């Protein structure tokens, strides 16, 4: 990053402008390109993918009209929302009402700074990377609470308060579940954590020991809760609160909330991938740095997108929990178990400071067994169903 700015200054493209100003321009332009070109389209495409995946789970077709297989649906939706009237309720707190969506988007945009796409593709490899990631994503709560309060609508208010309670509570198990990995690696840097793992599954922290396996699951669920995803979509619980904190929003501002929600899926996936799934690690097949970086980028994205897909799949399967159950799940189950994980990992590390490779193989084998059982169940349901039953012969 710094080299790039130095090069630009040296090239004299901007004449005699002070170096800091050039740096600011470069950063703004670059981030605009990154967010407008990568993050926002990603959120949009995820919305389409989610609708298609969800539709298949529900025996439906899903959006398939705009573009090939409906691929451009997200663009059509975006254009529609931008063209819509931006309704601001008369009795609302106008300033807060307007700011709220931007804060939510901010919380979605900031984590991309430490997103470790590959061994070199990272905007800023901070030494507190993972801490930064979890803390900036929590800014969402401010925006959501603000939206709920400023709408001057009781449903929105309940939604906002629910969201605040939920995000603040689930920060704790999420934070505690990061500890085992930090204990094992001794670093908070994203790249450092990834480098401590190998490309093979048995070297991933997911399978490093039983505690990290549990920690990974807790972190994933907590992250879903922070991202307001089913089964924790209480703040916008459609059947209870109409649309929760977003009830009064329309047009672009409404879209911002949902763009952030879909975009957050990538961030959730990236956190898990980095911490537990070996990040961008790929076998050294080439000495060419560019080729390796591309392969690593693909590896990272495949893992993240798989997790994004799983979250859609979960959304298509599970019902929503109630607010008191949400709280008891967090405080009665996740927090104690996370502590156990932390202590367990600490003991594990104390016994095997260099890690236990046998445990990795055993855990990986267990994971395979689980997957096989799962596939068997899937085939069982598939066999039993007779979906080819149609009463209208032409359909």
């Amino acid at each position, binding site marked *: 990053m710094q080299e790039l700015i130095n090069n630009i200054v040296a090239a004299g493209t901007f004449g005699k402008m002070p170096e800091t100003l050039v740096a600011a321009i470069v950063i703004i332009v670059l981030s605009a390109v990154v967010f407008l070109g990568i993050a926002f389209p990603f959120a949009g495409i995820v919305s389409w993918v989610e609708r298609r995946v969800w539709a298949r789970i529900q025996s439906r*077709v899903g959006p398939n009209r705009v573009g090939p297989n409906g691929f451009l649906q997200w663009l059509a939706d975006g254009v529609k929302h931008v063209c819509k009237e931006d309704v601001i309720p008369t009795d609302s707190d106008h300033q807060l009402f307007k700011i709220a969506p931007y804060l939510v988007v901010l919380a979605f945009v900031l984590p991309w700074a430490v997103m470790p796409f590959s061994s070199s593709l990272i905007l800023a490899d901070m030494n507190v990377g993972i801490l930064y990631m979890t803390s900036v994503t929590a800014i969402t709560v401010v925006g959501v609470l603000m939206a709920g309060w400023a709408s001057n609508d009781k449903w929105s208010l309940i939604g906002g308060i629910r969201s605040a309670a939920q995000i603040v509570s689930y920060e704790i198990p999420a934070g505690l579940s990061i500890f085992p990995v930090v204990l094992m690696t001794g670093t908070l840097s994203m790249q450092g954590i990834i480098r401590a793992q190998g490309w093979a599954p048995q070297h991933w922290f997911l399978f490093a020991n039983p505690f990290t396996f549990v920690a990974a699951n807790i972190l994933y669920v907590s992250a879903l809760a922070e991202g307001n995803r089913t089964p924790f979509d209480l703040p916008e619980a459609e059947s209870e609160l109409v649309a929760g904190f977003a009830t009064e929003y329309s047009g672009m501002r409404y879209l911002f909330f949902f763009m952030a929600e879909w975009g957050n899926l990538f961030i959730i996936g990236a956190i898990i991938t980095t911490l537990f799934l070996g990040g961008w690690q790929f076998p050294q097949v080439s000495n060419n740095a560019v080729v390796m970086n591309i392969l690593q980028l693909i590896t990272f994205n495949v893992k993240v997108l798989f997790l994004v897909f799983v979250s859609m*799949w979960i959304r298509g399967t599970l019902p929503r929990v109630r607010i008191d159950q949400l709280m008891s799940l967090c405080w009665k189950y996740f927090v104690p178990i996370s502590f156990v994980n932390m202590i367990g990992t600490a003991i594990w590390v104390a016994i095997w400071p260099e890690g236990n490779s046998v445990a990795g193989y055993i855990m990986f084998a267990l994971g395979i067994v689980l997957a096989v059982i799962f596939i068997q169940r899937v085939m069982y349901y*598939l066999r039993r169903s007779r979906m*080819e039953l149609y009463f209208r012969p032409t359909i």
Partner: protein
Amino acid sequence: MGAVAEYFDNIKNTVTTIFEGMAVTASHFMRKPYTVQYPDRIPVRVQDTLPYRYRGILNVDLEICTGCLACERACPIDCIVIACEKDQKTKILTISQFDIDIIKCMYCGLCSEPCPTGAIHHTSEFEGADFSTESMIRRFVTDPIDAYKPKKGPETDERIAPILNRGMRYVNEFAQGGEAWNGGVVDDGAAAPGADDEEEAAAKQ
């Protein structure tokens, strides 16, 4: 059950039931979707896939209408209006108006049941949207037309015979049900309620 056992039982239950649920949804990735896109993604028109008994928008074949007014009387919602005049000398019944208010019609099928020739019948057409309420009134008579007189034997007029055949098929379907599939004997006496009444009424007209 102790509190500790319950605690772990809860965790076990949650994990296993979610596992099962995910398996069910995963199996749906490998199944065909059940919905079809309306209307342009199936090889035939939707109307043609509908069963014979489908109750769509009403239609009247005036060629075989006897002008008996059975349908008008049967309609609980008064959406059918018929005007008939009988010439005192020639004894010919002339239908001068046969209007159906499609907006009001609730597609109950009570009008097509007593029809002796199947002149008024439901089609499989259901797309009736239009821009004005006025255009939703189906006016079947433009010029006054002579009512059809049922003949003793089979219909001889080549123009009317196919229409009557269709009409009688409709009547048979409704009055007696389909052909009985397990050797059922269909009793003719159980035709549409009070079929005789209608004939009397027609005779009076």
